[in-house]
């Protein structure tokens, strides 16, 4: 087994300087690891810090303490202390983040958004386009939308574009935050399949799923982060 994520002694406290310096402790002493081919599902009540933890794993939030080693290009790299260009390289080649919302870039077409990760990893344009089309079709996004920029799409359509982009070339480590929130049952099933396929291909997955049925179909293991709540 290959350990893909190794979390050690991670803590997070937000300090809100413009609210009298209020300190908002979220968690403390978080330790766990994730192997290739596993799907770890984060559990805990709303506000427990699931999304914060996922963002920390991505190098988006900065933890107050601790280290997170991501296996990148065959060796562990601490994303907490890595310089910006290393973090970006880890994200480009190893680490994917699937959020609930698509960050729309003006004027870029759906097809270009979806094939972009393949191009960034060096795929030939025709192959990238072909794979992007297959993925959009699987997620039942009408073909007439493919050449449009998603700015005007519905919430569920944008979400499917986002999922297509994330799964067109699954990363070795995938972080997933509520990907099915505004999807119908059929598309939810597709997402569950995509996650299973990525896992079968060796991806390590850490996810948050509010939908209990989805959660149970995806998870190989649970981590309740309430256990790490910082003692007041």
């Amino acid at each position, binding site marked *: 087994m290959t350990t893909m994520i190794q979390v050690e002694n991670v803590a997070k406290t937000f*300090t809100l300087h*413009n609210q009298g310096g209020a300190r908002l402790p979220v968690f403390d002493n978080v330790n766990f690891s994730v192997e290739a081919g596993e799907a770890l599902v984060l559990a805990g009540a709303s506000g427990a810090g699931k999304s914060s933890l996922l963002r920390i794993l991505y190098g*988006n939030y*900065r933890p107050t303490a601790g280290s997170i080693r991501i296996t990148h290009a065959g060796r562990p790299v601490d994303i907490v202390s890595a310089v*910006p260009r290393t973090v*970006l390289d880890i994200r480009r*080649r190893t680490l994917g983040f699937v959020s609930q919302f698509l960050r729309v870039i003006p*004027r870029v077409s759906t097809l270009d958004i979806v094939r972009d990760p393949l*191009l*960034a990893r060096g795929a030939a344009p025709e192959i990238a386009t072909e794979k992007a089309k297959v993925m959009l079709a699987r997620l039942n996004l009408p073909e007439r939308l493919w050449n449009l920029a998603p700015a005007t799409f519905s919430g569920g359509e944008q979400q499917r574009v986002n999922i297509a982009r994330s799964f067109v070339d699954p990363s070795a480590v995938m972080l997933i935050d509520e990907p099915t929130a505004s999807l119908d049952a059929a598309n939810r099933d597709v997402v569950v399949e995509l996650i299973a396929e990525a896992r079968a291909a060796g991806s390590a997955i850490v996810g948050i799923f509010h939908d209990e049925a989805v959660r149970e179909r995806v998870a190989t293991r649970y981590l309740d982060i309430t256990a790490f709540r910082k003692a007041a």
Partner: protein
Amino acid sequence: MTLHVAPAELDLEPAPLLSVAGVGRFYGERIGCADVSFDLWPGEVLGIVGESGSGKSTLLRCLAGIDRPDEGEVLFRGGAEPLDIYSVSEQERRRLMRTAWGIVHQNPRDGLRMDVTAGGNVGERLMDRGDRHYGQIRERALDWLQRVEIAGARIDDRPRQFSGGMQQRLQIARVLVSEPRLVFMDEPTGGLDVSVQARLLDLLRVLVRDLGLAAIIVTHDLAVARLLTDRLMVMKDGRVVEQGLTDQVLDDPHHAYTQLLTSAVLSV
């Protein structure tokens, strides 16, 4: 071209393109900027944000070779040997600015020759660089006008016949045609209306990525910073108060001033 990096390069990092150490510039008693240090690597896009008067333009002018700082040094690694841009002769510095660097001014009038045709504005940079073949220069100028979405038929028009957004795109073509390694931009989308801005931003995003440029972009617009930059430096009263990966600084700001800046906008 992609930014794909082979595993071995993780260990074998290339040297930074620009190394800035302790740069400061003072206007009498007043601080323009002070204590600024950072490294910029090939292909990286750095944003400088901060409120009006925080020293963004002052710093950019020091880095770009326009204004000599009172303190500190700016090393540029264009060739094998790093070059302290303020210890070389004025002539050498100008040559560097013409060939290895590009500067996009906020006001296109400061970066364009208003009495020269669009084609001439773009071609001039190639001639500065030593290109002499007229046909090839015109062909490249034409290609660049099209890349910045200016119709080829306008090649013999003068910039004053262009709209503000077109002038700005022409300035960008003039700067990028000579394939600089490093580009400085001060509020490149300032003064344009929102729809024109979006188009220009998308163009810049694609060009920067396709050409693998390193760039330093001053903006007061956090959405622009989010879209175009890899790293962000936040300035207040002439000093850098926070810096890091752009999404880190915007999503999990640590400094009181950055928290104020990010909470003042609805969603970036």
